[in-house]
């Protein structure tokens, strides 16, 4: 009896001392699949076959020119904000105030567009620069509070979303309310020089799209090829070690706040100058891009360049929700449920990465 009988061999689920890198991707993929399965149940309960729903979504987004444009339009703010957030999360700076930073970017853009006389060629570049600074400075407040006073940045950035939102409401109802809007809460439309060009027949403001792609590459290089990036990675992975190595935690926090807030500010400039061409109610300026970008950054696992596929995924979901609204006459909250489930399953499965399933023989 050297070999144990088969009944004594069993599967065990145990912590893995050395999880391989591939398991991260496997678990993430499975979590995404599980989220789609669970949402399928919701669609089914609503009376729409999940298969029909997903086929409709894929056909209506990826195999349809209007649909593809709608995906790209959502991709722009998501990739911009998402790539900035990967950096912040990598440095353990949990900036969830991108929504507010986006709004500050939009406010800055509107201020330049409506009230600062500039040569036409300089208007848009100035809007982007000032928008970046406005978003970055807004995040910097939370960074300063964290670095100097140890205030939790999750709370400050979250609360600052509301402050930004009310600032926009104040401006469009008060000092910036347009002369041509008959009392409604909008600014006047931006002059033509402050309007971003779009791909013909779509709402895809391509200059911001290009800016977003450049941003991912730039941030990736900054992170992996520069001294700053090295300091950032060390500070994020092991703050104590970073302190011993003489890396300034303050500097790192400032840098990631500026980058992530600035990127969100750029997204705000794009939405204001590309889509709306005016400042309007905050709930209409951004459709929660600042929050969805958290999923984008989370999925990209700290790699700015990987936000290109992950932002694309979330953009497809966004545009897919619209397709479902029109083609299947489903309520718009359905897609919120889907992205919520996605985040839930991803975070819920996080611990599984450090576990393995192994066939073990019982000791005799």
């Amino acid at each position, binding site marked *: 009896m050297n070999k144990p009988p088969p009944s004594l061999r069993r599967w065990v689920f145990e912590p893995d001392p050395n999880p391989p890198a591939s398991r991260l991707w496997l678990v993430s993929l499975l979590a995404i699949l599980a989220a789609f399965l669970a949402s399928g149940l919701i669609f089914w309960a609503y009376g729409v076959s999940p298969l029909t729903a997903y086929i409709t979504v894929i056909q209506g987004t990826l195999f349809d020119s209007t649909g593809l444009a*709608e995906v790209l339009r959502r991709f722009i703010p998501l990739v911009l904000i998402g790539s900035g957030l990967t950096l912040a999360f990598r440095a353990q700076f949990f900036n969830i105030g991108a929504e507010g930073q986006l709004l500050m970017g939009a406010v800055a853009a509107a201020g330049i567009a409506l009230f600062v006389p500039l040569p036409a060629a300089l208007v848009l570049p100035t809007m982007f620069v000032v928008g970046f600074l406005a978003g970055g400075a807004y995040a910097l407040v939370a960074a300063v509070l964290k670095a100097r006073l140890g205030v939790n940045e999750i709370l400050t950035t979250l609360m600052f979303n509301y402050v930004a939102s009310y600032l926009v409401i104040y401006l469009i109802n008060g000092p910036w309310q347009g002369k041509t809007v008959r009392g409604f809460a909008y600014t006047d439309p931006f002059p033509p020089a402050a309007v971003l060009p779009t791909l013909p027949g779509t709402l895809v403001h391509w200059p911001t799209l290009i800016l977003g792609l450049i941003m991912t590459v730039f941030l990736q290089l900054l992170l992996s090829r520069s001294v700053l990036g090295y300091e950032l990675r060390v500070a994020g992975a092991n703050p104590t070690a970073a302190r011993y190595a003489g890396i300034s935690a303050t500097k790192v926090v400032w840098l990631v706040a500026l980058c992530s807030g600035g990127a969100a500010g750029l997204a705000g400039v794009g939405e204001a100058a590309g889509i709306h061409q005016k400042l309007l109610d905050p709930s209409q300026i951004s459709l929660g891009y600042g929050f969805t970008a958290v999923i984008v950054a989370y999925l990209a696992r700290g790699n700015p360049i990987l936000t290109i596929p992950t932002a694309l995924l979330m953009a497809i979901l966004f545009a897919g929700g619209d397709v479902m609204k029109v083609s299947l006459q489903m309520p*718009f909250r359905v897609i919120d449920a889907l992205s919520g489930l996605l985040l839930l399953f991803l975070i819920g499965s996080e611990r599984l990465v450090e576990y393995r399933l192994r066939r073990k023989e019982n000791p005799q």
Partner: protein
Amino acid sequence: MKLRWIALAAVFLGAMGLAQSAKLKACFVYVGPPGDYGWTFAHDQGRKLAEKALPWLETKYVESVPEGQAMPFIDKFVKDGCQVIFTTSFGYMDETVAAAKKYPNVIFAHNAGYKRAPNLATYMADFYQVYYLSGLMAGALTKTDKVGYVGAYPVPEVKRHIDAFALGVQATNPKATVNVKWINAWFDPAKAAEAANALIAEGSDVFSYTEDSPTTIQVAAKKNLLAIGSHYSPMLKYAPNNVVSGQIVHWDKIYIDFLTKVHNGTYTNKNLQNVDYWWLLSHNAVELGADINMPINPKFIPALKAKMVKDSAGKMVSVYDLVMTQLKEMSQPKPSFDPFTGPLKDRNGVLRVPAGKTMTEEELTSMEWAAPGVVGAWPNEPK
């Protein structure tokens, strides 16, 4: 044999194709979900009633379309063969104008706006007369002489409604004030509850509102206070003992009229430049009611009959009779009464409508002044 089947099938399919192409396809862009119990709910009721009434009509809708982003949905509607497209919020105005230019063969109708084109009409069912009648009742029923009003946005539409309401309140109770709180949202139950509670704390005991949820009614009912509060859709069921009356809309009247005229060729994509529906009580597009066909909740009729006031001719009448008489006068094809007839002064004493004049649609849709009795912030108040 086989050929015959194929021929039959072909005829059948052809007939189906014909039957389909004979239907008029109308598509609706909604700003909120049909479940908002207010604005979009009422539009969706109108769409359903039109579809029921018109056998040749086929409809489709898309809900919760953000402002400034309607074009992709309009693109999709046109691709799907929509021949008439309704955009049901002021915020879609510029996009609808652009869409009408982009698709000259499609007929558009924009709700609550003022820009038209050969293939773009505008339409609105307005409540100002109904708000005046609501005000008459509120003035009669308040015991604290303070009437609360929860307003959405300080835009001309809401200001016009508050002014009409305040004129009514002061007609039956010159001592009473209308205390206004803005929530800066069309649909935000949390903010509406906050505003209503603040008004209660200030002493208001009768409420009216312009926002898309039943919140104000529910908050008032909890303290057993009253609301003239079916707004856009009937809301008696939310507080049967507290809802006195309200403002109900029948978008179906406009939708059926417009679509019938499109179907019989009266309206084409060339002749809508001057087509503007500004439909009031006389068109049955709006209704005074706690519920459909119930102008006043019977529970409150005795109290309204007991309260006597002077009518415009100086005769003593009960508020109930006053409301019913003026409702009848305004429901005639040529209304013999209009609340915005001069002389009217604003709350600062500035003459806004001279004696003998009645405000025009143009003046009503851009009015910014506050009526006497209105208390509270009033953005953009003219000096």
